[in-house]
């Protein structure tokens, strides 16, 4: 549905995206993970053509590219971007904003009330935005995206400033939108939350995708345990060669290649070092994040 082909973007001498290629399909939620300033927003801006890449192109439905303003208009009819809460119009109401987005993209405002009810915005949606708290503004930004009902949605920092119950509410809605065959990109710092609804999470580093984590199909399970560095040093020589010690505190032993008795033995051995929690399962977004971005800290 959306293909990025050899995208490169540089600001002066700094390469932000470097020959990045990627394909996304309808009915997918794709998490985009990277520390601040490493190209997440740039990637979104390229996808929406707010930034023209130095090289490469964005292809929508295998044949539409941003080759002219007319072509951009066609793609934009099917793609919406998450507004920044500081850019909202203070003098307009939340309802005005939602109606604006509904009529611009879906050409209708009939569905707005359902969104308001779902996101529990009835109490304040008719008040001017200048009276909103950060959380209310963020919920409004998400509601505006839902109002567009476009087939592609780019959501940068969608969960910023939201409390736990609202994060859960929005996560549930994202899953519902995925079932409606929408392609949704979500950049978020709530890494564990991404695991709930994302089909894939891509990790950006040095301008390219350093890792793509898939949550469906074959996944490799690990014994995961938090241990101190000095304890790890004591154990190090006994551990299998393909183990990982992520960010100086998470020890991960792959179960692949071990038989049941070996797995049991390692679990028993490691329980002696267990201070917090020993878990078995695939590496999550948090572990990969720590692996790729905190390893050297």
């Amino acid at each position, binding site marked *: 549905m959306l293909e990025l082909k050899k995208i490169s973007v540089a600001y002066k001498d700094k390469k932000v995206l470097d020959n990045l290629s990627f394909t996304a399909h309808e009915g997918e939620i794709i998490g985009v993970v990277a520390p601040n300033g490493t190209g997440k927003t740039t990637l979104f801006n390229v996808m929406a053509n707010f930034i023209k890449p130095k090289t490469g192109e964005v292809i929508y439905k295998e044949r539409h590219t941003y080759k002219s303003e007319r072509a951009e208009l066609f793609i934009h009819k099917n793609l919406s971007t998450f507004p920044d809460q500081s850019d909202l119009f203070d003098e307009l109401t939340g309802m005005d904003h939602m109606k604006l987005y509904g009529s611009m993209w879906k*050409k209708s405002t009939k569905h707005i009330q359902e969104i308001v009810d779902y996101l529990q915005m009835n109490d304040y949606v008719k008040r001017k935005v200048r009276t909103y708290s950060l959380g209310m503004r963020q919920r409004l930004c998400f509601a505006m995206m839902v109002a567009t009902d476009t087939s592609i949605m780019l959501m940068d920092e969608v969960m910023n400033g939201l409390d736990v119950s609202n994060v859960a509410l929005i996560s549930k809605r994202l899953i519902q939108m995925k079932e409606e065959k929408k392609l949704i990109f979500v950049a978020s710092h709530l890494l564990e939350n991404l695991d709930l609804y994302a089909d894939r999470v891509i990790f950006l580093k040095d301008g390219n995708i350093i890792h793509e984590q898939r949550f469906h199909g074959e996944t490799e399970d690990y014994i995961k345990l938090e241990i101190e560095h000095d304890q790890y040093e004591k154990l190090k020589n006994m551990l299998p060669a393909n183990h990982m010690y992520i960010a100086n505190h998470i020890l991960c032993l792959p179960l692949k290649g071990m038989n049941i008795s070996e797995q049991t033995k390692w679990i028993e051995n490691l329980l002696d070092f267990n201070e917090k929690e020993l878990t078995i399962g695939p590496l999550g977004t948090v572990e990969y994040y720590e692996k790729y971005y905190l390893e050297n800290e």
Partner: protein
Amino acid sequence: MFWKYVLFESKLLIRNRKLWFLGLIIILFFPIYFLYYSQSDPESLEDQKKYEAGIISSIFNQFPEDQRDTSEGNEVYDLISEQSSLVNMQVYYLSQGKNTEAYIESGLRVNELRLEVHELGNKGIPDHLVMPKEEILKEDALLTYIQKHDIPLQPDTIVASNYLIVALNTFSGILFFIYVLISGSEILLYEQRHRTVVNGFPLSFNTKIHSKIMIHFLHTIIFLLIGLLVGGLYAAKEAGFGDFTYPVLIYQNGSYEAISTLSYLLHTLLAIAVITLMALYLSILLNMIFNNAYANVLIGLGIFLIPHLLVNIRVDSQLFHPLTYIDFANVLSGDLSVKLENAQIDYWHAIFWLVILILLILTIITVVNRFIYFKRKEANE
């Protein structure tokens, strides 16, 4: 889509305090200016005629004796003598307050004689006492109109019908142009403060700017009409409605023509509408190029002043003449035609060139937009 975006822009405009303030200025301008105008003491027709009689008397006093010995000089002297008699008769008719027909006949005859004197080269008449040909033609057109429509000679200058012409002429030109430039100073710029909300709208640039222009245009025209209505009603309450069929002179097709007050006001409103569109399209262009609200006003004003500066330093500025048509009260009166020594400059000529200017600005906007679109490399973060 266009109308939905127009609706959104209208909501923003309704909540824009700057535009409300500007609208209030227009509304208040007309009644407040009436307070000033009604205090003025306009010269009566009788005073004007007495002044003319005085001028003719000065011509007699300063007429060189030796000129009377030549046949042409003698002819000029006789023509001036006849003018003197007729103008004094006009003063008499006015003092009597009746016999309009005789006043007009005398006036038309005086104008004929003055034109004859012009044909004879105004021999023996000091330059400062020569009545310009344009003035003679204006008065001739006015008297002919009054005779044809059988209307009173002297309108009350303070009444609403006359006041609205004076007020509109005062407000038009540079004052109105600055007003629209201020009103449109952020026509595109405000979007920068809401970039992520409006950036991805599935709207073409043209749809966007035309809806903005439409909203700002309606804002200006509606407030102007309200201002005129308020000012007109106030003037009418204080001094009466006056006569909207009374003639006003305009310069047309190389000569002067009298049209009714109502027709003059409609001509003026059409010109204001065209100038408003031009100033708004210019604001869009300046917003795109300079990204600065102050630059919009200062550079817009600078562009308007270019031809005036060039005229003052005696540089041939014919290319820039259309910019001076913004001051359309001078176009209507024919003063601009005289100043720029271009007999073609009349109302429809000015409207035609202002429309050409709008199309030219639109073309530049399209080119600049294409340039920005294709040069949008790494500029947005």
